[in-house]
């Protein structure tokens, strides 16, 4: 933000972000670079001409706080409204931040105390084998540790406030305080949630709200469609803590408008930290629209996910140029942190039948007659590659196959092996196989136990989609072909000789059962 002198006024231009009460009546202290490129503090009338703001950001907790972006366009501020000395605004800001940190930390202390109070209340009522939880030593330990942490945070906070009253500079003190209190109270909140068991995740229990305001937790799945209720259990068994079920005839088929609207509505309501969408054909259509409406970013087509232990940010890894460049992407400023994840790259965790989750019914707020797109008929192209992503065995061909007829030979081989048939990009472009069979960076990612690459040169655009295979067998007459760099077994020969030989051998082994 800049401030340029103009007679008795300064003219301010620029954007400010996350401004509490930026849209409410009164004056705000605005920091801007003046004509000497130093920071000056101005008291700006929030109803001045040229002052405008965005709608409030949707937050994870703390609904109602009203953080907005503020846009100043040629806003005139009298020189008499400079707060403190001109060009010395930064000092003023640092002093304010120090005081505000103490307010932040006592907010943490208060919330931490509430976590303990709620846990104690719950522990006295909750009976386990005829005794209240609080009578058990293991739980007593948890409560004691929470109490000790909160007391340490509380009295240090009081002491810094006392220093303020003594007129001391508390910039270093308040920073050290924050360094200590934040992780300590986050741990208190985590313990309180653990103490509450599954009840901690249930809305209505205060601990759920406290935890959301202090830290975060839980996986929620959105299930949308018609007649899909039977899949709720599946989602819970595979790790969802909550399932939001939007079951409605209007959501029967994927339609951009309906799915985008419903997802955005649920995100604004549940305020997740992280939003994951499968990078399927529909997901790729859906994700960017949702991101745009939520005013957040989206890392698309990622293959690895992690949480940075220090910043607690989601780190999404996206391979570029095949798998040769891996980019770690973060989203520090906007929420939710959105990522689309390539299907097939994560192994599905085992089903846990004992898991319990919460089912939340949600409405699909669209009327059939209002939806701009109507699905008249769904025509499926005869697909040979539908099961590629989950196939145990894959036979794939490249340009080395020569022509469409060559793929007939591969088809027979695949049939004998019980494998799915795939191809690199160019044979698909040539129309030798349907699009669904495309494997690689802009096609499907496979992770079979056996990948048989026939006449494939091994360009990174293709190998990006196969590197997770357990065993890669390559047949190519060029011994320098790049495919041999990733292959576990290589056969250097003309595939027109090798493949028929394999077919003959397989036929002999399976005998008359198949032919």
């Amino acid at each position: 933000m800049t401030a340029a002198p103009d007679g008795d006024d300064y003219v301010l231009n620029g954007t400010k972000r996350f401004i509490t009460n930026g849209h409410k009546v009164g004056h705000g202290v605005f920091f801007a670079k003046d004509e000497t490129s130093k920071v000056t503090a101005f008291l700006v009338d929030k109803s001045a001409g040229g002052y405008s703001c965005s709608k409030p950001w949707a937050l994870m907790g703390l609904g109602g706080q009203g953080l907005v972006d503020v846009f100043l366009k040629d806003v005139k501020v009298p020189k008499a409204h400079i707060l403190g000395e001109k060009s010395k605004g930064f000092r003023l800001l640092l002093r304010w931040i120090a005081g505000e940190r103490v307010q932040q930390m006592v907010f943490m202390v208060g919330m931490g105390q509430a976590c303990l109070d709620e846990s104690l209340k719950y522990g006295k009522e909750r009976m386990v084998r005829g005794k209240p939880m609080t009578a058990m030593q293991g739980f007593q330990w948890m409560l004691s540790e929470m109490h000790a942490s909160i007391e340490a945070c509380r009295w240090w906070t009081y002491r810094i406030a006392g220093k303020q009253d003594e007129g001391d500079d508390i910039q270093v003190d308040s920073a050290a305080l924050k360094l200590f209190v934040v992780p300590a109270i986050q741990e208190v909140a985590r313990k309180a949630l653990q103490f509450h068991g599954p009840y901690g995740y249930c809305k209505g229990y205060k601990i759920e709200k406290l935890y959301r305001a202090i830290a975060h937790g839980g996986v929620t799945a959105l299930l949308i469609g018609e007649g899909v209720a039977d899949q709720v259990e599946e989602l819970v068994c595979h790790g969802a803590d909550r399932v939001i079920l939007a079951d409605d005839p209007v959501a029967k088929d994927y339609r951009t408008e309906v799915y985008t609207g419903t997802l955005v509505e649920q995100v604004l309501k549940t305020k997740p930290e992280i939003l994951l969408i499968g990078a399927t054909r529909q997901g790729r259509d859906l994700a960017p629209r949702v991101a745009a409406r939520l005013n957040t970013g989206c890392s698309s087509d990622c293959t690895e996910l992690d949480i940075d232990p220090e910043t607690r940010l989601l780190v999404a890894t996206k391979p570029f140029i095949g798998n040769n460049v891996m980019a770690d992407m973060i989203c520090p400023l906007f929420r939710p942190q959105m990522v689309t994840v390539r299907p097939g790259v994560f192994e599905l965790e085992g089903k846990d039948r004992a898991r319990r989750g919460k089912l939340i019914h949600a409405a699909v707020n669209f009327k059939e007659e209002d939806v701009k797109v109507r699905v008249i008929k769904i025509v499926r192209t005869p697909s040979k590659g539908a099961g590629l992503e989950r196939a145990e065995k894959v036979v794939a061909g490249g340009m080395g196959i020569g022509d469409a007829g060559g793929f007939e030979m591969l088809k027979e081989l695949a049939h004998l092996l019980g494998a799915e048939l795939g191809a690199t990009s160019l044979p698909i472009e040539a129309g030798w196989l349907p699009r669904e069979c495309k494997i690689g960076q802009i096609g499907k990612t496979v992770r079979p136990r056996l990948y048989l690459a026939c006449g494939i040169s091994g360009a990174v655009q293709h190998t990006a989609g196969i590197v997770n295979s357990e065993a890669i067998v390559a047949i190519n007459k060029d011994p320098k072909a790049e495919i041999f760099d990733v292959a576990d077994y290589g056969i250097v020969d003309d595939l027109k000789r090798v493949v028929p030989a394999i077919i003959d051998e397989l036929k002999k082994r399976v005998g008359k059962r198949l032919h």
Partner: protein
Amino acid sequence: MDFTLSPESKMMIKAAREFARQVIEPIAAKMEEEDVLPDDLLPKFAGAKMLGMTVPREYGGTQTTALNMILVSEELAKGASAAYWVMAMNNSVAETIHHWGSEEQRRRFLPPLCDGSHYASMAFTEPGTGSRRQLP
């Protein structure tokens, strides 16, 4: 060094606890759910002497210590509600204006912050900058 809380402090803690129970608790869930701040909340804070707490009485403040402000704040924090930050912001900005402002600025800007007719803002974060540690 005195580690005791004065009778005045204890009284203020009790009053704040009562305020949280009577005024904030009933509206907290609705605030959270609908993401809106009720218009009459800030004046209610003012009525309870919880705005401009460290500002001298002549400018409309409560003229108490920073420690008392923190003790009162702690009680309001227990509800984990955004109501806290509306109160906290008016306090910290009023303190800043009192500390750095000219006499004229104090007379003009402090009373409306203390009586809850104006909402305080502090605008320093920009899309490319902020108080947060800079990531590499």
